[in-house]
Structure formats: structure tokens, C-alpha cells
């Protein structure tokens, strides 16, 4: 467990010392959220209708942007091999990296989304549900995306390839995440959506490190 926390601490430290890389994902989210009203028009009713979906897709794309970073730096400077050769279970170490990645790339999106939701004139309970659904959904995005990042280490066309591999797998999270806010807005209640998001989070957290370890070993062969 010490190794897990040491790795999380290390990656967090690295992220704080490379602020530019980290903030780019967040800035992208802000910009994308502003693009949609510009393209569709400022009519409040329309914006309220598309708001949750737009913010969810924006968060998804922002997560995609930061995924290649997850293993790439370690792979370049040789520390990935040390992780694989470590006596600690690789799955645990990978989970540590995913957690650190989410804290730095996912959590800011969760915090920012309600603020951006104000731009779409969403009511406050919708803002709350948006934050909750993203809080449950962005870790799943990090987990599934990590598999894509691990498989495409050092491959040409990296970022776009990861997106192509991983976006279809994100669809369930998107459907239930954005759907939760919609359901709340239409008065149907979002309990089912939240439970399903939770039901996707737990297997993702357990299954993804294992799949990533296999993918990393394949990439290093």
C-alpha cells in the first residue's frame, strides 16, 4: 500500500510541477462549453435543454485529451519498466497512476462543470446532479481510457487512435451520466441513473488495472 500512495504522491507532484500540461485539459473544457452556444444560438430554453449533454461531451473530450499523458512520460524516461519490474503488483501501481490522473484531470472538471452550467441557465438542482454524475462518471472515463492509453503507447497517431478505441466504450457512461441530469430536469428522478453509474464505477475500478497491466506488458515486449 505504501507503494500505491508513494506513486500517487509522485504523480501528483509531477503534475503540479508541469502545470501547463495539466491546465490545458481544463481550458479545453471551458472553451468547448462556450463553443456550443456560439454555434447554436443564445436562446435560453434551447441552452437549458442541451446544457447537460454539451457539458458531458465536453468533459469526455477533455478527458480524452489528457489520456495519452498517463503512461507516455514514464515510458519515455524508462520508469515504466521499473513499474513493471517492481515486486509490487502492477495492477496496484497502475491504479495509483489512474487515481492521480483523475485527481488532476477529472476532478477539476467536476468542480468546473456547475460553473459552466450557469452559462446554460441550468437550475441549481440540475447543477448538483451534473456535478454528482460527473463525479461518478469521470473516474470510469479515466479507468477505461487508461486501457486505451496503455495499448497505444508509442504508436503513431496516438491521441486520435486512443479516442477511436475508447469513445465507443464511453457511450454507456455518457448515456447514464447526461441522462441523470435530464431525468432530474423532467421530474422523473435520477436514482436509477446514479445507481447504474455506481454499478459501472466499481467493476471499472477493479477490471481496468488488470487490463492495463496486460496492455503495458504487451507494449513493453
Amino acid at each position, binding site marked *: 500500500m505504501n507503494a500505491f500512495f508513494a506513486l500517487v504522491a509522485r504523480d501528483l507532484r509531477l503534475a503540479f510541477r508541469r502545470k501547463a500540461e495539466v491546465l490545458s485539459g481544463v481550458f479545453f473544457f471551458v472553451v468547448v462549453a462556450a463553443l456550443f452556444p456560439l454555434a447554436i444560438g443564445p436562446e435560453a430554453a434551447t441552452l437549458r435543454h442541451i446544457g447537460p449533454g454539451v457539458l458531458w461531451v465536453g468533459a469526455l473530450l477533455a478527458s480524452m485529451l489528457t489520456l495519452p499523458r498517463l503512461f507516455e512520460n514514464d515510458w519515455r524516461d524508462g520508469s515504466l519498466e521499473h513499474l513493471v519490474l*517492481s515486486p509490487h503488483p502492477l495492477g496496484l501501481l497502475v491504479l495509483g497512476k489512474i487515481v492521480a490522473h483523475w485527481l488532476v484531470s477529472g476532478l477539476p472538471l467536476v468542480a468546473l462543470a456547475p460553473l459552466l452550467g450557469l452559462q446554460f441557465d441550468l437550475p441549481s438542482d440540475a447543477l448538483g446532479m451534473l456535478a454528482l454524475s460527473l463525479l461518478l462518471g469521470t473516474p470510469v472515463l479515466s479507468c477505461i481510457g487508461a486501457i486505451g492509453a496503455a495499448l497505444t503507447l508509442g504508436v503513431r497517431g496516438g491521441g486520435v487512435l486512443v479516442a477511436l478505441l475508447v469513445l465507443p466504450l464511453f457511450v454507456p457512461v455518457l448515456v447514464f451520466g447526461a441522462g441523470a441530469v435530464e431525468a432530474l430536469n423532467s421530474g422523473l428522478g435520477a436514482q436509477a441513473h446514479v445507481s447504474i453509474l455506481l454499478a459501472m464505477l466499481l467493476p471499472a475500478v477493479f477490471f481496468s488495472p488488470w487490463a492495463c497491466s496486460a496492455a503495458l506488458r504487451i507494449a513493453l515486449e
Partner: protein
Amino acid sequence: MSQLQAIAISCERGGRPLFAPQSFTLSPGQAMQIEGGNGSGKTSLLRMVCGLAPTASGEVRWGGQAIAEVRHAFSLDLLYLGHSLGLKDELSAVENLRVASVLAGHPVGHEEALQALQAQGLGSRSHLPLRVLSQGQKRRVALARLQLSKARLWVLDEPFVALDTLAVLALQQVLRQHLAQDGLLLFTSHQAVDLGGAVLPWRLGA
């Protein structure tokens, strides 16, 4: 007594075998220097011994058992340094050493790490990010890491490259100490190396 055995190991690249099946045994206190031209497969051989790359045939044994079966024990006993040093530029030397030691299974305290760096002449620079150190200074951080390591088998890929004379002597000293403590050493190098005792040469390729 832990021995390293390679039994008829070979590997393939692009469908073709890189070299004929290799078999050798390395005992505690022994060092083996793998020589061969560029592209003869030296790095691949080292990676196979570490378990990073699969063998197309044969197997590698540690202490008489296949490394796939004793993965945990083997990884505690193994230190591998490839071409890249595995050091993070944004972290300081001390931070690098401490994190690396935790991940390697033998955690090292702040004081110990500092002492090792001082022994390499980097005491005053130990808290600066590695980014500001020169290439030679970074290699000395890697050297400090070797010194702190409690692993019994060291597999080093081109450890002497880009080192000046003083650094070469320092590295040789560290390696000699390791062998004197019954450690095993497997490394590649293009130049002749003086490690106090007989270094088993091993030639790959024609």
C-alpha cells in the same frame, strides 16, 4: 544460493531469430559482460533475462526456478537499468531516489538518500530538480541509486556510456563492492572494464 541460469533462450524480431539459443550460468560474485556489434541483440537478451520480453524458446531461472514462477522474489532481487535512467526531471535527486527505492521494494529514508548523494559529490544539489543537472550529474544520481540498492542481481545496459574517467572509476568501484558482497552482475559495454576479478565475457552474434 541464488544463481541466474539462462537455458537456450532466444528471441525473435520481425519473425527472424536475433541470435542462436544462448545458455549460461551466473553465480554470486560473478560478473558477465555481453559484447556484440550494434543490433546483435544485447539489449533484447538483457530484457529477456529480466522478464520484460518473452523468450521465443528456452527459459530463465533464478535460484533454480523459472522466473515466471518466482516473480515476486525475483523482482525483489533484481535491479535493471536500461538506456534511459528512469529518473524524473521534475523531481529532485532525493525525491527520485526515495520513490525509486519504494517501488523497488526496499524503501530508503531521507537521510540515507542524502548520504548516498553526498558520497557522489551531489550533496549541494540534492534538492534541485534533475532538470538543472548535467547529463553526467544525472548519471551520478543513477550511481547513487545503485549504491542504495539491495538487489542481488544487477542487469545494466550500457552503464559506462557517456561517463568521464572519474565517473567510470566511481562506477567500477560500486560494481566491485557489489560483487564482493556476493552480488551478480550482467552488463553490456563496448569497452574493457576492470572489476577486480575475472569478468566473464560473452559474445553475441558473429
